[in-house]
């Protein structure tokens, strides 16, 4: 028989700490799985695990806590299927299928710039691309991206910064963002 007082507390904690993070969880799950149906299953897994564990959660940094649960759930699921995160072809297909959020005021020049950035992004090694995706597309902090990938924050920082430098150099070679600084 569940204790009703404990249960109400659990549900309130879930509402206050987990529900505000649903969109982030979905975005990160989509980045990790590269497939909407898989992402739904992964978020469902994460929510059920979070619900069961919330009594033991101290309430600090709910996003980091949830992302760690999501990462573990993803690892468990990965034992049953190949890790799509390392499959650049699948990544490219998903990105091609993705609908870019182009606003009405985006100019033709912006679109060409965006196209050049996209092309440079596609050329990145998959590990670099995964971090750029988590930080720049999904909006995670360095610490949060490190939690999701199970790597140190320093690794996130160095891969991310190197990735953007590569994009920046690529833009320069195709005639954008030419360096004005004297060498």
């Amino acid at each position, binding site marked *: 028989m569940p204790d009703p007082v404990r*249960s109400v507390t*659990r*549900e309130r904690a*879930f*509402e206050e700490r*987990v*529900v505000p993070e*649903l*969109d982030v*969880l*979905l*975005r990160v799950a*989509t980045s990790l799985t590269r497939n*909407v*149906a898989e*992402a*739904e*299953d992964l*978020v*469902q897994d994460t*929510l*059920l695990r979070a*619900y069961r564990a919330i009594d033991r959660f101290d309430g600090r940094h709910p996003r980091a806590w949830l992302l760690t649960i999501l990462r573990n759930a993803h690892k468990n699921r990965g034992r049953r299927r190949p890790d799509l995160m390392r499959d650049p072809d699948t990544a490219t297909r*998903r*990105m091609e*299928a*993705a*609908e*870019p*959020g*182009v*606003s009405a005021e*985006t100019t033709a020049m*912006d679109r060409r*710039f*965006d196209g050049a*950035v*996209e092309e440079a*992004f596609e050329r990145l090694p998959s590990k670099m691309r995964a971090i*750029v995706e988590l*930080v*720049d*597309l*999904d909006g995670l*902090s*360095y610490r949060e991206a490190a939690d999701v990938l199970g790597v140190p924050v320093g690794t996130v*920082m160095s891969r*991310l*910064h190197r990735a*953007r430098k590569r*994009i*920046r150099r690529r*833009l320069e070679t195709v005639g954008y*963002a030419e360096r*004005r*600084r004297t060498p």
Partner: protein
Amino acid sequence: MSRDRQRRGRLTCREVGRKLQAHLDGELDPTEAEAVADHLGSCADCDFEAGVYRGIKEALRRRRPSLPDETVSWIRELADSLVRGDTTDAGGGSRGGESSP
């Protein structure tokens, strides 16, 4: 702020180059962020670099795919059922064949 403190807080272009991306990502502590912002305000070269990296971040952000409405509402319903304490329903499995492609 004293002149000495201003001098101590002043960063070189090389130092700013190392901190620039973390600054644009909002990952620096307030003191460092202020020092980088001060430098950018008075150095056209570094400010140009900051503009390029900001442009890259914004272009990447614009290519973020939108989440399908159907997926968002399904996850919200699942969360709502957990908030109501309706764990039997919530644990009843995934959407299976209904999932988006």
